């Protein structure tokens, strides 16, 4: 096997003999690249963000922003990483002309104050700068940005800049100093990358392949299996192994709760887990695709999921987190479960003994408990077709970007001539596990979709689950939000002109 190594800012750096517990962030910093910072150690603040070269369809690469504080460095064996230091490609201070365009806009427009979050912002911003779908030419008129003090006016109310910049690409980066306006202005001032920009050109070639890494240090083994057979057999022999995809949850366990699993199995690049198939009667989604990849792959075919994606954590997290991880950890406040429950999804569980399909509604059995047996792996999620046509996903949280649900509710109704033919409602945050609102579904089916029906169903919905008081919300508010979600769903799906859609 090849020696373990990571290419950082264009230079190969060996990482033989490092601990499987050593995170990418700490490894980079120990290499002297101290630009990336630890702000929270749980993927919330983005101060540790870096760029990694990820596969992007046929023979292409996409510069993808990820949190370096969560995954082990060994997960990047053979991969290419770019840090804030590497974007400008020089040592020490430099003049504005020598800075990368993203760095220049951030520096000149007051995008940094204390500067601690800045390298992470720069990396998130660079990923969006290079995003192939971004239309930097501006479909509309250029919106002037900046502050009146320096002779410029402010940007208008947009979450997408006139340069196609999607502001939610920065939703996983926190700044405590600036109040964000100058960072937004910097983002919206970016043009298209130059034709000969080396990082742009790098996207034309394939991403590095994932190498079958094996390492053991500090009493922990790290293995990236080469095949499903190898993975399932390792899982059978080591049922307590930590299956690792994006590390967005497992990394938090390592950092904050100091878990030190004896064996880590990296599955995120295993091709059989990365399929996305659009069949005539179902959609199959591999569990190791990141949520960003699923979003791009589905390309709007599942409107309910399109409502979910922007509300699921942040871009930095969605670039690493997977459906498999979200369902396997089985958190009662995981956000994919309510949507998938409403979509009547099932999961495929694979083991050396073969596969079985379980409806998601029967998958969860208790607090972080499921029917998944030792040695079993979530291989895929199936969504039956045709999809219910009237759907919505509501997430109730303190913060609009990148927060954890107090309650989330997903609705999927089939209407026939104004009457509710079927109803599926998924909820989180109101019990020890994600649930379907069965009694509310029952109260809806067979009735006309009218305000009266909605009011009646809301009264039932308020009594679903067994919500508790905690730091995010009171039980009373959670119950009220269940009921209000039905009224909101009605207001947004009924044709009455007086009822607006919340932006």
């Amino acid at each position, binding site marked *: 096997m090849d020696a373990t190594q990571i290419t950082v800012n264009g230079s190969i750096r060996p990482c033989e003999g490092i601990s499987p517990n050593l995170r990418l962030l700490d490894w980079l*910093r120990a290499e*002297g690249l*101290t*630009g990336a*910072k*630890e*702000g929270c*150690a*749980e993927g*919330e*603040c983005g*101060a540790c963000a870096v760029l990694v070269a990820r596969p992007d369809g046929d023979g292409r690469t996409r510069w993808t922003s990820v949190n370096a504080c969560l995954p082990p460095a060994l997960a990047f064996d053979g991969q290419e990483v770019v840090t804030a230091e590497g974007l400008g490609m*020089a*040592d020490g201070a*430099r003049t504005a002309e020598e*800075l990368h365009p*993203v*760095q*220049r806009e*951030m*520096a*000149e427009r*007051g*995008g*940094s*104050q*204390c*500067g*601690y979050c800045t*390298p992470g912002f720069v990396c998130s911003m660079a990923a969006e700068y290079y995003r192939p779908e971004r239309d930097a030419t501006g479909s509309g008129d250029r919106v002037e940005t900046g*502050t*009146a*003090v*320096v002779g410029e006016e402010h940007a*208008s*109310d947009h979450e997408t800049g006139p340069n196609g910049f999607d502001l939610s690409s920065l*939703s996983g980066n*926190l700044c*405590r*100093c*600036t*109040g*964000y306006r100058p960072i937004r202005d910097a983002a919206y001032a970016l043009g298209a990358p130059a034709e000969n920009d080396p990082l742009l050109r790098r996207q034309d070639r394939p991403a590095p392949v994932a190498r079958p890494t094996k390492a053991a240090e500090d009493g922990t083994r790290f293995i990236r299996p080469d095949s499903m057979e190898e993975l399932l057999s390792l899982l059978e022999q080591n049922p307590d192994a930590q299956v690792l995809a994006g590390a967005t949850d497992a990394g938090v366990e390592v950092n904050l709760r100091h878990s030190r699993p004896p064996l880590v199995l990296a599955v995120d690049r295993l091709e059989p887990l990365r399929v996305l198939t659009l069949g005539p009667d179902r959609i199959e989604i591999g569990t190791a695709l990141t949520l960003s990849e699923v979003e791009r792959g589905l390309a709007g075919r599942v409107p309910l999921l399109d409502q979910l994606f922007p509300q699921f954590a942040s871009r930095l997290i969605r670039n690493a987190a997977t459906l498999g991880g979200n369902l396997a950890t089985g958190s009662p406040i995981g956000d994919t479960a309510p949507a998938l429950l409403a979509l009547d999804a099932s999961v495929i569980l694979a083991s050396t003994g073969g596969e079985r399909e379980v409806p998601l509604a029967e998958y969860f059995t208790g607090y972080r408990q499921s029917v998944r047996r030792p040695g079993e792996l979530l291989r895929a999620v199936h969504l039956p077709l045709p999809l219910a046509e009237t759907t919505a996903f*509501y997430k*109730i949280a*303190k*913060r*609009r*970007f990148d927060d*954890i649900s107090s309650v989330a509710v997903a609705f999927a109704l089939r209407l026939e001539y104004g009457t509710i033919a079927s109803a599926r409602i998924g909820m989180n945050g109101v019990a020890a596990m994600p649930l379907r609102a069965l009694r509310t579904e029952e109260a809806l089916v067979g009735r006309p979709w009218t305000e009266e029906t909605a009011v009646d169903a809301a009264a039932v919905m308020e009594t679903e689950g067994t919500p508790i008081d905690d*730091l995010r919300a*009171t039980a009373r*508010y959670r119950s009220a939000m269940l009921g209000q979600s039905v*009224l909101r769903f009605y*207001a947004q799906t009924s044709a009455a002109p*007086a*009822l*607006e859609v*919340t*932006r």
Partner: protein
Amino acid sequence: MKSLADRPVNPVVGVPVAHESAALHVTGTALYTDDLPIRNSDVLHAWPVQAPHAHARVTALRTAPALGVPGVARVLTAADVPGINDSGTKHDEPLFPSEVMYYGHAVCWVLAETPEAARLGAEAVEVDYEPLASIVTLADAIEKQSFQGDQPTVARGDAGAALAAAAHRFSGEVEIGGQEHFYLETHASFVYVDESGQVFVHSSTQHPTETQEIVAHVLGLTSSQVTVQCLRMGGAFGGKEMQPHGFAAVAALGATLTGRPVRVRLNRTQDITLTGKRHPFAASWEAGFDDDGRLVALRATLTSDGGWSLDLSQHVLARALCHIDNAYWIPNIEVLGRIAKTNKTSQTAFRGFGGPQGMFVIEEVLGRCAPLLGLEPSELRRRNFYTPGQSTPYGQPVRHAERLHAVWEQLLGRADVERRRTDIADFNATHRHLRRALGVTPVKFGISFNLTAFNQAGALVHVYKDGSVLINHGGTEMGQGLHTKMRQVAATALGVSLASIRLAPTRTDKVPNTSATAASSGADLNGAAIRNACDQIRDRLAEVAARKLNIHPDDVRFDDGTVTGIGFSDDGIPFAELVNDAYFQRVSLWAAGYYRTPGLHWDAARMQGEPFKYFTYAAAVSEVEVDGFTGAYRLLRADIVHDVGDSLSPLIDVGQIEGGFVQGAGWLTLEDLRWDVSEGQRRGRLDTQSASTYKLPSFSEMPEDFRVHLFERATESGVIYGSKAVGEPPLMLALSVREALRSAAAAFGPDGRSVELASPATPEAVYWALDRARTAAREAARPAGMDAPVPAPVRAK
């Protein structure tokens, strides 16, 4: 010499320039304290042993098991302290306590070869605790009369008599939440004994001198044997004014005992659970108004939650009492302040330093009472503004009160408030489930440390023979742009280009006996000290130039690196050439500068005097949209007009205003500290101890349309180049967001109804406020006898 406020022609101050470290920030090459250990070898890492009790006596501490963990080098305990076992200035904060005073209190520290070994070592330390009764809520502390420090009163006139005679009288109670600083860079110290034998402390500290003093007294050394350097901080916001000292002392103790460099770097969990926060407050109030809505009296009691030790609580309380008037004339007033002692982290300085909590109370009073008085809240506010000639309750004349009115009028015009009120009424009439509203609030904030002695500063300016300039001053850089402004001040004072000024990191062996960089005063104090040093050098150089040019020294001009005579347009001497000449004439090319703010006096016992050099004025309009289904809201637009005097550095000042506003909005709407108040095992534990449970503002909380305007022609006499402080005042402008949310919730209900809104105004809090309003509307829709509510006493709780 010209006055401090006068600017020469072609000044470098006033030019919008980027942060002096911006290029380093964006390339990841700006170094912070914890970027240094990996550049050194043989470093030991520290990890605290945190107690799992809110209050307990330590009955036994066994460190031997930790020493058996591979990689553990030493466990630091009270027995190791050669000097004084205390991390504060009031001797009520033992560095290694024998009595645990809050959940997570560090009882000892483990040093090891790696952070992992240190953590495992800390887990191996065995501590026996005898749990004691604890107080973990403000209400409980008040009931049990658990207070600490003085209980000052600010008073004027006869509040009792005026209340009794008032045409309208209301009362209420309100709780104000605290706030975690959440600087992105957690506390960090890195200490070694250097080649000369001095203890060299790198610390992320706003107050290097005090860090030096605490390290010295813990080690039993003199201050001259300890040097503290602060490269820069990754945010501080007051959280690194008092709190860094203990961590620096732990690292210094470890370094002196082991002879190896020691790194103390808190992870986020440790930082949140170990360090103090903005003080939560509880307030009860009674207010009287005349028939025109003018305040005639206010009586209030403010109780802050000081946590387990005094720290800066007395000064924070004093500032709260000195800002309860905000911008309003209150002829009869009596406000009592108390500091509760609770088993929580020791609450400390946080941007605004009590000012925000004081202002919160009066804005709450006005926001609650306006509907009952039948007045638009902003009109009620305007009617009560100070007018020229009036004084604050603590006896300081409100200089430039007319500026408050001018700022307000300009704001209403620039923000197009009249037209938008009509638009909002139309919007609300046509949207069943959404309500928009404006909130308009003023800020008057006193500038200077309440503690008079802190209002002094020093600087050191070196001019080298090649004409390059190196400046040092006592202030620290935490992102606020102080160093940027100081370079502009030096360039202006010496008449050279900005590029020729280099600023070296803050350290106590360059400028001694400094004050904390706090109270918004960094630029005022240090700028004046730098100006003083530069003026000394420039005056000496002027004599050299005068001889050469054959003119009087008073007629020498320094401008952009060229020295000429008055009226000359040619024949300039390059600055570097003049400097070289001066050297050969044996003229000193360096100077120490000093400044003390004149005219301040303060009697802390009587709470009377003139503690402030001047007042900073500002006002804001915020527009929110609230969703009736959830209570969720968006900040659609914020307009600010801010008096910064003549700005030293406009881009920096706008950054402070915008950042302060959003941080204030976070405090008032989103940031929610929750402690476990149960009787269970985790009583006193902070439940929101991570970024996933304690939410800061993100992009989604930024005003979608954000317009900041600096009030023009605002020269402040007697202050460096006519500028004013800007660090703290904008935070309090966010009260306009809270008041807008109150009005939006009110708009779901009938007119003339006072709206209670919990703080922070989270979506849940707003939902319950609007839900009560909606219920009231349904009840009001019932026929007969419900019109025109009569103003009557209300109880908020």
